C-alpha cells in the first residue's frame, strides 16, 4: 500500500488524510442517492445517523463499545499486514479468544477480579494466538496461503463453538446454546459503573484496546522484532540477506495478530454478554480488514477508522429505528459501501490526487535539492 504512494511526490497528508475522507464522502454520496431513490431525505437520514452515534450519552457509549471491537480486529489485520500477510481469520481467532475468556470466567471464578483480569486477557490472547498459529506455521513451512487457511479456520472455530455450547458448556436444563452466566465479580466494569454517565455496553475493555494500540505502535516501529517483521513484509529476500528468518517472523506476526483478534472476546464475553454465546464475533473480524486498510495499518489511523465504523454501526441502528423505510439491510448496505470505497476501491481517486498534488511536490523537491 505504501508503495503506491512512494515516488509520486504526493504529500503525506493527502495520502493519509484526504484520500480516506474523499472515499468516505463518495460512499455517503452513493448512499444518499439510494436513500433518495426510496423517497427519503438523505440529509435527514445523515442527521439521524450522526445524532444516533454522537448525539446523546447512551449513543456515544454504544459507539465506543463497537469501536473497541474494531480496534482489536483492526490491529490484528495491521500487524499481519506489516509482515506481508493477509489475515482474514479474525472471526475465528476472536471466537477462540472469547472461548478462552469464557472458560476462565466460568471455571476460575474463585479468583478475585484483580487476578481474573490479567488471566482472562492472557487466555484471550493465547487462545486467539493458538488459532492463528497453525495457519502461520503452514504458511511459513509449507507455503499454504494464509488467506485460504485462516478463512477455513473461521468455519472450524464456528463449528467448534456450536459443538461446545450445544454439548458441553451449555447450561443444564435450557434449550438455547449458551453457557450459564458468569459470576458478577468477574465482569469487566462498565464505564457507567465508574463514571456518572448513561447506561451502555461501553466497558473497561476500551482501555485495554487503547493499551493494545500503544503496544502495537512500540512493537512494530520501535523494537528489533518489529523491524524484522516489517523487513520480511517489505522484502523477504532482503530479510534473508540480513539473516532474518522469514518463516519465524511469519509465525510471530500471525500469533500476535491472532492474539489481538482474540482480545475481542474480552469486550464481548467479559464486558457485555457475561456468558459464552454463539456468533458474538458477528462480522467484526471482517470489518477489521476495512478498518486496518482505512487506518493505513497505523494505530492512530485504526482508532479513527474504528470510531467511524462504530458510529456507522450505532448510528445505523438508530436510523433503521427512526425511519422504517430504511431497513436494517439498508444500513448494512451503507456500511458495505464504506468498506467498498475505503477498502476495495481505496485508490479509485488516487490518480486524480496525483495529478493535482504531484506537481507541487515537484517544485518542493527541486527546492530541497
Amino acid at each position, binding site marked *: 500500500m*505504501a*508503495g503506491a504512494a*512512494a*515516488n*509520486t*511526490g*504526493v504529500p503525506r497528508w493527502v495520502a493519509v488524510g484526504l484520500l480516506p475522507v474523499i472515499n468516505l464522502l463518495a460512499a455517503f454520496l452513493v448512499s444518499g442517492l439510494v436513500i433518495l431513490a426510496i423517497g427519503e431525505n438523505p440529509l435527514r437520514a445523515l442527521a439521524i445517523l450522526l445524532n444516533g452515534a454522537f448525539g446523546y450519552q447512551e449513543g456515544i457509549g454504544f459507539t465506543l463499545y463497537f469501536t473497541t471491537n474494531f480496534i482489536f480486529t483492526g490491529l490484528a489485520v495491521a500487524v499481519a499486514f506489516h509482515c506481508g500477510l493477509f489475515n482474514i481469520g479474525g472471526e475465528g481467532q476472536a471466537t477462540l479468544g472469547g472461548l478462552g475468556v469464557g472458560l476462565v470466567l466460568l471455571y476460575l471464578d474463585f479468583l478475585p477480579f484483580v487476578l481474573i483480569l490479567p488471566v482472562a486477557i492472557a487466555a484471550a490472547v493465547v487462545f486467539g494466538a493458538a488459532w492463528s498459529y497453525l495457519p502461520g506455521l503452514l504458511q511459513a513451512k509449507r507455503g499454504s496461503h494464509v488467506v485460504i487457511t485462516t478463512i477455513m479456520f473461521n468455519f472450524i472455530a464456528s463449528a467448534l463453538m456450536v459443538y461446545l455450547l450445544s454439548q458441553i458448556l451449555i447450561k443444564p436444563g435450557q434449550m438455547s446454546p449458551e453457557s450459564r452466566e458468569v459470576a458478577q465479580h468477574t465482569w469487566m466494569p462498565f464505564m457507567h459503573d465508574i463514571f456518572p454517565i448513561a447506561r451502555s455496553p461501553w466497558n473497561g475493555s476500551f482501555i485495554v484496546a487503547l493499551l493494545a494500540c500503544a503496544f502495537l505502535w*512500540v512493537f512494530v516501529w*520501535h*523494537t*528489533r522484532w518489529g*523491524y*524484522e517483521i*516489517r*523487513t520480511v513484509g*517489505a*522484502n523477504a*529476500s*532482503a530479510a*534473508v*540477506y*540480513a*539473516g*532474518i*528468518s522469514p518463516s519465524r517472523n511469519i509465525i510471530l506476526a500471525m500469533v500476535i495478530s491472532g492474539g489481538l483478534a482474540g482480545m475481542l472476546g474480552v469486550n464481548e464475553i467479559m464486558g457485555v454478554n457475561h456468558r459464552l454465546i454463539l456468533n458474538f464475533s458477528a462480522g467484526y473480524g471482517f470489518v477489521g480488514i476495512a478498518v486496518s486498510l482505512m487506518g493505513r495499518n497505523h494505530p492512530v489511523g485504526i482508532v479513527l477508522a474504528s470510531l467511524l465504523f462504530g458510529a456507522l454501526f450505532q448510528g445505523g441502528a438508530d436510523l433503521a429505528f427512526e425511519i422504517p423505510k430504511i431497513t436494517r439491510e439498508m444500513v448494512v448496505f451503507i456500511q458495505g459501501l464504506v468498506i467498498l470505497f475505503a477498502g476495495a476501491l481505496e485508490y479509485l481517486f488516487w490518480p486524480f490526487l*496525483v495529478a493535482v498534488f*504531484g*506537481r507541487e*511536490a*515537484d517544485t518542493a*523537491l*527541486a527546492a*530541497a*535539492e
Partner: protein
Amino acid sequence: MSEGGASVSERPEAATAASGRAGLPPAIELRGINKSFGPVRANRDVSLVIQKGSIHGIVGENGAGKSTLMSILYGFYQADSGEVFVDGRKANIVSPDDAIAAGIGMVHQHFMLVDPFTVLENVVLGAEGGALLAEGKAKARSELQRLEHEYSLEVDIDAVVGDLSVGLRQRIEILKALYRGAETLILDEPTGVLTPQEADHLFRILASLKEQGKTIVLITHKLREIMAITDNVTVMRGGEVAANVATKDTDTEQLAELMVGRKVLLRVEKTPAQPTETVLTVTGLNVVDGAGVRRVKDVGFTVRAGEIVGIAGVAGNGQSELLEALAGIRQPASGHIRVRDQDISAEHAVDARGMRELGLGHVPEDRHRMGLVMPFAANESSILGYHYDPAYNGRIIMERQKIIDLCAAQMKAYDVRPDNPLLTSANFSGGNQQKIVVAREMERNPDLLLVGQPTRGVDIGAIEFIHRRLIEMRDAGKAVLLVSVELDEIMSLADRILVMFDGAIVGEVAQSEANEQVLGLMMAGVSPDAADEVA
C-alpha cells in the same frame, strides 16, 4: 547544458550535417519531447535526429532518461509534449503496435521470448496471420530463411528457445523485429549479457544490417561500444540532451565528461597487492538452487587478507549462487567454506547473521532485491543485517536517535546525497542507494568483504568513489572477493581473476596477464591454456 566539450555541437540540428545519406529524410526525428513521472522529469525538451542507414548511439548514466525516451518512441509511454517524425512524416505512436507499423523494432534488455516455444513459434507470436498456425508458420519459415541469409543471422529455426545461448536468443529478438518489417531497430543495452566474442558477433550483424540500409539505435552505457560501431552519438544527462556529436569527432574521455558533467578518472590507480594470511578457503563447494539444479560445481579457491580476488563470468554462470552461499543466504549442498578457523558445510550451516558475526561484510549484487528495504527510511536500511546490535538496542526499545546519527555519519563519509537519514530509501538515486549499502558493509570493518556487482546501475562519479573505497579496504589488509560481469571493473580492481562458466571455475589469471581476449574465451568455457593459444 554541458559545461565541457567546447568542440561539441550543442544544438541537436547540427548533428544532421554530421553524417547520413544526403537528401533522405531522417529515419527518426524527435522534437521537444517532455515526460514526467510524478515529480521526476525523465525527459526535458529532448530533440534528436537519427539518420537513415546509420548506427546511432545513445549514452547516459542510469536515470539520464535514455530508456524513457526509447519507451516513448516504441509506444510504451506517451510523451507529455513533443513530436515524433518517422521518415519525415509526423507519427502518432501510442502503442508498440503503432511503432511496429511505423517500422520501428525493439530488442529489449530482458528478452521477451517464450522459452518452451521453438524459434519459429516465437517469431510468429503475435503475427500468426490467422486462426490456423500451419499457413502462417510456413510463410514465416521461408521469410526467416531469407532474413537469416541476408543478414548472416544463423539460428536453427526449429530449436527450442530455452535450449539456446543468450547470444542466440538475442539474434531471435532481432529476427523477430525484422520479420515484422522493422526499418529502424532499437537495441537496449544489448551487450550486458554477452561475452566479448558474442558482442563482437553482434556488432558484425549490426554492421551488415546497416549495409542493407537499416537504421540502428544503440542504447548503452559502455563508451567503448559507442566508439567501436556508431556513426553518431547522443549524450543524455539528467533527462536532457547534453550533446549530439559525430563519433569520429569525439573520444571516450570527452563522452564520459559529457555524461557526468565533470572530468572523471576512468582508470583505477593502485599499488601491487601485499597479501598475507588466508581468510577464506573454499573447497569442493556445490550449491543447488530451488529448482534442484546444481548451479555451483566443485568450486575451490582462497582469498587472502590484503588482496582483491575477482570472479568474472557472463551473468548466470553460478556467480550469484556462489556469492549467496558464501554470505550464508544459501546453504551449500556439499563442500566446505572456511572463514579463518570456522568451518561451514551442509552439516554445519551458518545463516547470514552467523556469517556477519564471523567478520563478513556483503555488498549484494542487487540492492533492490537484497541490499535495501525500499519503503524503509534510509536510517532503517542502514542497519539491515545489524539491527540486533546492542549498540542501538535497549532491552526492548530500539534507540532510533543513535541509528539516525550513525546513518548521518555514514552518509557524510560516503557523500550520499541528499544526506537525510529520514528520507525513504526508494527516493535516492541508484548511485546513492549503492553508497548507503557500501557504507553499511564497509564501516563495520569486516575481515572479509564480499562484493557483488558493486557499480551496476551506478553513475560514473559513484563508480570512481566505490572503486577507490574497495582499494582502500584491500590496502587496510582486508580480504575482498569481487564478483562482477563488467570485465573492465574486474581487470582494473582484482589482483587475481577467477573465471566462472556453467557453475565451475574455468581457471585463474593474474591481473598482469589478464586481457579481454583470454578472459572472454574463458568466459565461454575455454580452458586458460587453450585460451592463451587462441588469443
